[in-house]
């Protein structure tokens, strides 16, 4: 294992986070602060904000998209090791992944036919 390889990433993480936090702190010290209640209202094109938005429910489609996303993400996770080892796996690997993708494509076709991918009905 090559932990030293990952050390620069840790440095970069620390450096960019420090930069972000530091500039926010600096800005909060450097900038004027004249808060008024009107200024702190949430934006609504100059009107008094009508109501709290958080209570409204969104169409279930967004949930569907997120759920399908996870499923395809997991599929991608399987595809990468397969792709790396493809030279070793050869024809057998092709058949394996062929079956895997075929099963998932069937489910994908089902979602498509059921209208799960339609955004406007």
């Amino acid at each position, binding site marked *: 294992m090559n932990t030293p390889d*990952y050390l620069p990433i840790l440095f970069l993480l620390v450096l960019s986070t420090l930069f972000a936090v530091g500039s926010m702190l600096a800005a909060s010290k450097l900038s004027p602060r004249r808060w008024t209640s009107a200024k702190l209202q949430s934006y609504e094109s100059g009107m008094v904000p009508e109501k709290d938005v958080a209570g409204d429910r969104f*169409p279930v*489609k967004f949930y569907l998209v997120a759920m399908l996303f996870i499923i395809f993400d997991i599929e991608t996770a399987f595809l990468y090791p397969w792709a790396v080892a493809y030279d070793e796996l050869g024809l057998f690997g092709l058949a394996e992944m062929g079956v895997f993708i075929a099963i998932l494509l069937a*489910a994908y076709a089902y979602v498509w036919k059921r209208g799960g991918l339609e*955004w406007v009905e």
Partner: protein
Amino acid sequence: MIEIIVFGVVFVVALGSSLAMLFAKNAVHAALFLVATQIALALAFLLEGGQFIAAIQIIVYAGAIMVLFLFVIMLLGVDKKEPLIEPLTGQRPLAIGLGAVLAAEMLWVAWRGIEFAAGGGDAAGRLVDTNQDPGNVLAVARVLFSKYLLPFEATSVMLVVAIVGVMVLARRMGMTTPGEVAAGAGEESDLASPGGGATG
């Protein structure tokens, strides 16, 4: 030396943020603490040499499943309105019982050590060798696509079940197919209609 420091930090972050997740009042904050736990776990995998599993931990858990959690919290607006009543009766005793079983299981595995988890013999040594020689991803691929072929193919069936489940659930919750436009859509908020907003 650095490894020990990083391990300490990872350990503290993982444990601290999971505790914070449990005690957070706000659902979004709880989800964020869980994200922190997932990332810390990814780093822990990395420290153990499991580079592939670390990347997958971030891509699938931190980047996909937690996004779904946040999404659902945002979409349903549970963060502010939903009361904290347990819908299932007997949830607590059940949780305590199952938690105890899990804890016992983990203690047992920890006691038996990595040899047990990896299949006995000098498995720990072999694991280190495998991870070093062809690289971690290749090592995973070799086992996954030969020894664990059946579980791998079964995963696709499981994913299909998940897809069908999602479709059925989403439909019952007000999803419409192209044929039933008029009947559906009634309960949904007009506010959140990007497609409609753009067309109309």
